């Protein structure tokens, strides 16, 4: 196939700045390489995503890539794609299937590892002494489950660290703020000195709630969150956020390298990690200008 491959990509939606950056990275890279990209947005619904995947078959694309909304429920459609002879690359989130040959490879972050890193950083920072409030992501979503799991793993050994409040903030600023408000006003609220948020947006909402309560975010309450969006860096520069664990959305280049490899018939590892860092206040100012999203 000397011609450029046609790629079908199904995105989850545009629920956050992170996701938008992810989309832009993929679209931009496709345009740069002159690859025809069939893009479909699933508006956070698995059923829409399955429809898109099946449409890709009908459109006879060469490679299918997608970020699954949830982990399960992909067997039938993946089997159909396999029958049609189209290779599949997963991005960002993994799927659970009984037959690993249903997809070629998965490129994306390891949510459990992100949680673990946030936990480890906190153990170091607080020397194992912390009363923690946790803002959980959308109930049932893979990042929420895994980031919780990783974090709990990391602080498991520390007798001085315990999570006294844990509540879903739906990955949004508004809910993050609203939930933090009630955390702070609960009788135990006064003792909270650490906030762990599953994403930056919730942390940014919570920062406002903390300020409105007359406390200093970043000082009175240490805040660690995940994603590494621009807003988080600005908050760190302002001293209101302590640490963000990067979850890199800019996978466009990596993805299309893989597409090229797949089309060329190379064998690929099942799991390909994305390059990610962890940033605290000391690195924030330096990193801020180079943040794209």
């Amino acid at each position, binding site marked *: 196939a000397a011609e450029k491959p046609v790629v079908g990509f199904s995105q989850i939606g545009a629920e956050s700045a992170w996701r938008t950056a992810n989309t832009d990275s993929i679209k931009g890279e496709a345009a740069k390489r002159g690859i025809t*990209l069939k893009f479909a947005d699933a508006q956070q619904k698995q059923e829409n995503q399955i429809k898109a995947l099946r*449409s890709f078959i009908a459109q*006879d694309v060469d490679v299918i890539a997608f970020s699954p909304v*949830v982990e399960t429920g992909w*067997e039938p459609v993946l089997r159909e794609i396999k029958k049609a002879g189209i290779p599949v690359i997963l991005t960002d989130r993994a799927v659970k299937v009984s037959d690993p040959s249903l997809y070629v490879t998965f490129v994306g972050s390891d949510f459990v590892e992100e949680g673990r890193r946030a936990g480890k950083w906190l153990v170091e920072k607080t020397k194992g002494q912390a009363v923690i409030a946790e803002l959980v992501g959308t109930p049932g979503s893979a990042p929420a489950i895994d980031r919780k799991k990783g974090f709990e793993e990391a602080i498991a050994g520390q007798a001085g660290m315990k999570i006294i409040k844990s509540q879903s903030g739906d990955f949004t600023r508004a809910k993050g703020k609203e939930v933090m408000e009630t955390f702070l006003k609960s009788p135990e609220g006064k003792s909270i000195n650490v906030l762990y948020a599953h994403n930056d947006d919730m942390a940014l909402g919570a920062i406002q709630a903390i300020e409105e309560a007359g406390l200093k975010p970043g000082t009175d309450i240490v805040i660690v969150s995940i994603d590494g969006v621009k807003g988080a860096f600005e908050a760190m520069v302002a001293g209101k956020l302590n640490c963000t664990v990067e979850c890199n959305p800019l996978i466009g280049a990596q993805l299309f390298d893989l597409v090229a490899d797949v089309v060329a018939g190379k064998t690929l590892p099942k799991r390909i990690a994305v390059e990610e860092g962890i940033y605290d206040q000391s690195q924030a100012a330096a990193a801020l200008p180079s943040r794209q999203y």
Partner: protein
Amino acid sequence: MNLAKFRPSARLWPVLASLGVLILLYAGGCLLFENFGSLRVLINLFGDNAFLGVAAVGATFVILSGGIDLSVGAVVAFTGVLIASLIGHGQPPLLAIGLALGFGAGFGALMGALIHLYALPPFLVTLGGMFLARGLAFVVHPESLSIDHPFYGEFISQTLSVPVSRRLAIPFTAFALIAVVLAGAALARWSRFGRNVLALGSSESSARLMGVPIGSTKILVYTLGGFLSALGGVVATFYMQSGNPASFVGLELDAIAAAVIGGTLLRGGVGYIPGTLVGVLILGLIQTLVIFQGTLNSWWTRIAVGGLLFVFIVLQQLTARRRVG
């Protein structure tokens, strides 16, 4: 008096108008996009929207009776999780499916009974039902859960589907959709229950005075709605081989929209079940068009879906208005 020839099937107009627009839309897609006219797209249209169609038939019955059912999406999600979890615990699939259907019917009956016995507004009761079913789904299992059982893997998706070519088969779910629509249409048109539902929706006070059994009709219609929602959930498990408590949020609105686009009046009393199928197909076709277009980002997708919906509704309205003159 020979005024008899006046506008014989005026009520059928909106359905015919919808059908016309559906065909127009499809033809437009075929002209614009390569492969759009392929058989696979047509089959997908039925297979992909089967769960919605099945649930929408139930929703149509409820709307015809003058009520509304907001619990559809939550019940579909709940039954999916229930089946997945039961099978996960080693129960035979048929038993799990049976239990799920029974639950759906019972849940509907309960809502119907509340609505009838205590004269409560259906909107509130079924909204309560929606919250309850959604919460219960998370109680059953807080995350999505896949179904690993040969019945699902082999039987449903291989044995029961009808191959058209080497790479293409008509999925079982498509047949399920058509069967439910036919059965629903027959029930609405040829059974006493169906006619009672329409009478109830058109004028409850008159229906009572005419001796229609209001109570049992109401309870039954919500039972049917719940049952078909659950059946929609079962079809969805065939489709995805998994259950997810967070899925199908807002499906009830799609179901209602499908019914209304298909010519059912939201106030009740007027509508056709086959119209609902047309409505479902139109919603599906709009999505397919957007996917084939292939460059729209999230917001343009939304705007395009809304815009197509608008164009379509105006077209339908203009065609259907003719008859009113």
